[in-house]
Every structure is written in structure tokens, then in C-alpha cells.
């Protein structure tokens, strides 16, 4: 046992001291934060105003001002004709020029057919669709007026429905929070997926390195192959846990900083003038999210996450170690990687179904199969899973972990001393049957 401790220590400390680890650990959350906040930040940046000169001879648009970055500049039809208006637009350097002709007898369809937009060059899609929508809106108003319907009445009869869904399963009649649960399930499953691939392949590479540097022969004369394999897997697993913890810690820190720097001032600025609205806002927005969060068993999810994270990693890492032992160089590992990566990728596909129907047959069975259960069960958990299902899934995973590790170590102990020809799958199975 003391020897395993030494191996774990070496695997852990040599990796943690590497520059690449330190950089990735610190940079990871920054990159993630950048991916999350950059689009929002870019969208909040003021863009160049685009001014569109409008010669509205039908007075259709009612001097609509435009929106954020698209402004409409109206030229008085009594002072400008088409040619002079276009010349004026060009002289001003405006983005585009729109001409709404006068319709004989006020026929909206005539206007719709004859309105024109001019620009030297291509027109932006957003400008074009904005103008089309605006024209459609005002033309509809005109048509309603023509048939004697007051547009005000139409506006008043429009109703927005926000369906309040109650989950009766969760005792308290809390608000449904499907989207949040989907988010939690997906993020948890995806984190396990990433870490299994990232650190499982590190285990494999470590084994190949020991083989190619030929240090393995010296090692196995001091420690048993099983001790070497488990020491390496546990050591790298601890590196994964450290990195994950740092990422979560730094991520939350960045989140708090970002919120207080960018979002809080905006909220404060928006809310201060009307304190009354401030109180009513949480009622239908934040408060409902808050109350629905309460319906999720966070403790259970976190505990299960740690379990599936650890045993999912251990299960796959043993297989990665066996693959590493069977080959002499990384490029030979492809063939053996396929049966390992297949269940992982399959899990990701099943998750999409499981998030939509967490109690369905597909979701149930894949959360029992040990190679897919770590991901699929994590996707199901936020929606609530019967305790017996969870316990059964964990039990199956535990038993398979023991069996697969035993099997992998049988291949490993032969593979690490084999050089030369790349073995076939049948040969791997034969290795597993060798006595010692």
C-alpha cells in the first residue's frame, strides 16, 4: 500500500508542477467566462447608427423613429421629389434611401408593391427585415382602418399567455423549472464526459510513455503491475479533481466579479427610478426561478455527481490503461479507442432524449448500463429519480468497475512487457487468460 502511495504522489506531483497544467487550470475558467460573457458584451456594445432617408409620400409610417441602431430620417414630401431626396441621402452619406410612393386612392397594396429601397452596395439583412416588418405593420393598420376596424381594439385583444406549470410530484406545488433542470443535467453529464476523455487519455499516454521510455521493466521489478496501474489512475484522478475544484472556484469568482461589474450596475440603473416595478419584478421572474430551484435536490445531485464522476472516471481509466499497455505508440491506439469512445459518444446522444423524457425506457436502460450510466443518470437526476433506480445504477457501476478493472489489469500486466507487433482483439483476450 505504501508503494501505491509513492506512485500516486509521483503521478500527481509531476503533473501538477507542469507549466501546461498551471496554465490550463488558470486559463480554463477565463476562457469559459470569455465564451459566456463575450457574446453578451459584444451585443451590449453600441453599434454604428445606420440612418435611412425616407421619402414617405403616402405618410404611411406615421414618422416612426426606427429602433436602436436603425434610425429613419424623414424628408418632407412637399419640399423633396424622388430625385432630390435621393441626392440628399447620398450627400448626407446615409445608409440607404427608401421611397414610399403616393398611392392613388390610398390603396395599401399599391404602396406595398411600389415601395423601393436604394443603397450603393448590399443591404444588411437585419435592416431589410426591420423595414419590411415596419411596413407590414403600418400597412395592416391602413387595411384595418379601410375596413372600419379600430386598430386600438385589435391591439387590446392581443393576449400573452405564460402557462404556469405545476409539478405535483414534488410535494409542494412549486413552479416547474424544466429548463433549469435540463441545464443542470446537461452540464453535469457534459463535465463528466470531458473529464473522462481528458484524463482517461492522460492515463493512456502515461502508460505508453512508460513503455516507450522502457522504465516499465525497472518499475515492475519493484511493484506489482496492478499497483502501478491503480497508482497511475488514482494519481491522475486526483489531478482531475484538483483541476475541477479550481475551475469551479475560479469560475464562481469570475462570475461574481462579472455580475457585480457589468450586470448589477445595469439592474440598479434600470430599477432605481421605479421602485414599485422593482417589487413586482421578482414575483414573476426571479422569485419563480428561486422557488423552482428549491424543488431540486441539490445535495443529492452533488453527491451523485461526485460518485459518478469518480467511478465513471475509474471505470474508463482502467480501460484506457489497458489500451495504452497494448500499444507501443499513441498512433496505434486508434483501433482500441473505438470501443471506449463509442459508449461515451452514445451517452451524449442518449442524453438529448433523456433530457426530453427522463423517465422513458431509453433513459432508464442507459442509466443502468455501466459504461453509459455516469452520463445518462446525471442527466436524469435533476428531474428526480426513484431511489431504487439510483441505488441499482450505482451498484451496477460499482460491480462493473471491479470486474472491468480486474480484466483491464490482466491485459495491462502482459501488455506493458510486450513490444513490437500491434496485437489484435483476440490476442488481448488471450492475454487476459494468461496465468501470470
Amino acid at each position, binding site marked *: 500500500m505504501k508503494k501505491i502511495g509513492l506512485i500516486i504522489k509521483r503521478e500527481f506531483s509531476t503533473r501538477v508542477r507542469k507549466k501546461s497544467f498551471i496554465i490550463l487550470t488558470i486559463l480554463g475558467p477565463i476562457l469559459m467566462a470569455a465564451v459566456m460573457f463575450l457574446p453578451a458584451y459584444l451585443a451590449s456594445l453600441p453599434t454604428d447608427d445606420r440612418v435611412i432617408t425616407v421619402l414617405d409620400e403616402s405618410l404611411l409610417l406615421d414618422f416612426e423613429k426606427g429602433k436602436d441602431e436603425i434610425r429613419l430620417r424623414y424628408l418632407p414630401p412637399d419640399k423633396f421629389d424622388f430625385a432630390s431626396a435621393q441626392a440628399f441621402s447620398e450627400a448626407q452619406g446615409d445608409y440607404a434611401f427608401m421611397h414610399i410612393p403616393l398611392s392613388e386612392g390610398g390603396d395599401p397594396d399599391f404602396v406595398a408593391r411600389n415601395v423601393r429601397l436604394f443603397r450603393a452596395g448590399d443591404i444588411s439583412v437585419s435592416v431589410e427585415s426591420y423595414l419590411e416588418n415596419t411596413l407590414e405593420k403600418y400597412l395592416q393598420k391602413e387595411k384595418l382602418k379601410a375596413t372600419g376596424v379600430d386598430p386600438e381594439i385589435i391591439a387590446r385583444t392581443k393576449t400573452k399567455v405564460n402557462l404556469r406549470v405545476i409539478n405535483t410530484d414534488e410535494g409542494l406545488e412549486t413552479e416547474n423549472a424544466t429548463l433549469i433542470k435540463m441545464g443542470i443535467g446537461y452540464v453535469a453529464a457534459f463535465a463528466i464526459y470531458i473529464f473522462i476523455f481528458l484524463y482517461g487519455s492522460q492515463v493512456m499516454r502515461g502508460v505508453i510513455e512508460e513503455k516507450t521510455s522502457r522504465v516499465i521493466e*525497472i*518499475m515492475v521489478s*519493484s511493484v506489482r503491475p496492478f499497483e502501478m496501474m491503480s497508482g497511475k489512475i488514482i494519481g491522475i484522478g486526483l489531478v482531475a479533481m484538483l483541476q475541477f475544484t479550481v475551475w469551479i472556484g475560479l469560475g464562481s469568482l469570475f462570475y461574481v466579479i462579472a455580475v457585480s461589474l457589468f450586470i448589477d450596475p445595469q439592474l440598479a440603473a434600470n430599477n432605481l427610478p421605479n421602485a414599485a416595478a422593482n417589487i413586482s419584478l421578482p414575483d414573476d421572474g426571479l422569485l419563480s426561478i428561486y422557488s423552482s430551484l428549491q424543488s431540486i435536490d441539490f445535495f443529492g445531485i452533488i453527491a451523485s455527481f461526485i460518485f459518478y464522476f469518480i467511478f465513471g472516471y475509474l471505470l474508463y481509466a482502467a480501460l484506457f490503461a489497458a489500451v495504452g499497455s497494448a500499444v507501443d505508440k499513441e498512433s496505434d491506439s486508434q483501433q482500441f479507442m473505438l470501443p471506449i469512445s463509442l459508449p461515451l459518444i452514445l451517452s451524449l446522444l442518449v442524453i438529448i432524449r433523456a433530457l426530453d423524457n427522463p423517465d422513458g425506457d431509453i433513459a432508464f436502460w442507459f442509466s443502468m448500463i455501466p459504461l453509459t450510466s455516469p452520463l445518462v443518470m446525471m442527466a436524469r437526476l435533476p428531474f428526480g429519480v426513484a431511489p431504487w433506480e439510483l441505488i441499482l445504477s450505482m451498484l451496477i457501476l460499482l460491480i462493473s468497475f471491479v470486474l472491468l478493472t480486474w480484466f483491464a489489469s490482466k491485459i495491462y500486466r502482459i501488455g506493458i512487457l510486450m513490444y513490437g507487433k500491434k496485437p489484435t482483439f483476440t490476442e488481448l483476450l488471450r492475454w487476459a487468460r494468461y496465468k501470470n
Partner: protein
Amino acid sequence: MIKAEGLHKSYGNHVALHHLDLEVKAGSIFGLLGPNGAGKTSFIRIINQITAPDSGQLFFNGEKLSASHIKKIGYLPEERGLYPKMKVGEQLLYLAQLKEVEKSQAKERILKWLKDFQLMDWKDKNVEELSKGMAQKVQFIATLLHQPELLILDEPFTGFDPRNTEIIKKEIQRLGEMGTTIIFSTHRMESVEEICDSIVLINKGKKVLEGSLRDIKQQFRSGNYDLILEESEISTWPAGIEILSQASLQGKLHLKLKLEPENKQSLLQFLSTKNLHLFQEEEAKLHDIFIQTTAEE
């Protein structure tokens, strides 16, 4: 020290060791010889408990070989290798601790060895920065840090220049004198003749020759003698002597004779009146014995 009884090991259809019986006496420097694929590495791996035999038993100091003996064995594999990205000092400490040497004691011994081998300046360098010869020395040190009772050296001189070979050879001889049992596996027969007390020759998993170096050489005596005489002193030779070759060199006659042991005395008497410069029995070369025995099989 090591006693093998009916050791048998096969991989699939390939028999690596065929019911091998073998004994390595304590304190001896024992040459484990054999052509490639003879089963030397399989035998060494069984002693190191890297693999287990299919049948047969191995005893270490009279006890059945067990995990507790690992720390008493030092092994220098033919395929050398260290962790390239680990510092020399750390690596040695790691390997020593895996052989259950106390940390403080290991550190002391590492310093002593690095000094002896003039590697002190490299202690905090990564192994990948060392020259091949230096890395080999570091590995040799790693094999000895836990002061093993049994030392297994598989082709220890490969990769060393003549100067370093001499250093390592002296070290091996010194360890032998201090009572360490050494199993020395090699193809280089001249180093075996210099170092080993006794040898075993195995071929295709079977033992073909065993004994002390002297006995084996005796066994393989050719009965050939080299003579140097003043030229044309002899016209007729006594009976029972066969002249294999003769040549004149700088006024002297160089002869190679074959004679039966019972005729030796009469020949010496015959030569006592002649102007004799050299009379020497041709020694059996291990190299020739090796080729002869492995070819017969």
C-alpha cells in the same frame, strides 16, 4: 542463494523455459549465458516476480520466493529506461523508496553514489538532458541503492564507452568481493571470462552446460599446444604427436601440436634438450564453447 527446481514457462505454444533446474551459490558471480531467445529474460523475470512460472519452484536463500524478497533483489534490465522528465535526484529517490529504503537513508546513499560516479552536477537536471552513458550510470546506481543481496545485471556494459565499462566492471567486482551474489547475463564472452566464477549456458529453455568456469574450460580442453623453437632443430618428432600447423617467423619456428595427455611427459623430455622459447596449452575460449554447444542443440 537462488535455486530453481523444474521451472517451466510457456507463452501460448512457445516454451520459454523447459523444466529448468539451476543453482546460484551465494556470493558468486554467476554468468547466465545463452543465445537470443534462450529463455534468459524469462528466467530473470521469474526471479524478479514480474511473471510467474507455469510449474516448478524457485527458492531464495532456501525460502520459497515471495514478495518479501523483492527488496533484496536489484535488477538492471537490458532495455534501460528512466522517466525522461524527472530530475536525476528525485528519480533515484523514487526508485529507492519503491524498494523500501528510508527516505533519509536513500538521500545519503544517492549523494555518495552521485559523487563516486561524478554526477553531482546533474542531480537536479532532468534525465532527458543526460548523455546516454550518464543515464546508464544513473540506472546502475538505481539498481544498487537498496543494497541488494542479489544483483541481476542484464547486458550491463551495452552503451558504455571503454572507460565507463572499466568503472562499472570494477564496481561489479567490488560488490562481488563484498559478498553480493551477482547474476550476470550477457553475450559478451570476454567479460564473462574476466568476471564470472561459474556459468550456466541455456538454449531453447534447456540447460546445456553448468559449472565453474575452470571446470568447464577443463572439460573443453582441445589438447592443442603452441610451441616456439629455434628453426630447423628438429627433424623427427616422437610418436603420438600430430602437427596441426607450422610457420617460420623471424628465424623462429611457430608450431601448433595436438597430443594425447599420456604423451605430454615424453614430449617435454624430448624438448628439454632443445632451445625452447614457448610451450603453452591452448586455453578453451568461452566464445568457442558457446558456439559449439549452442550449435549442437
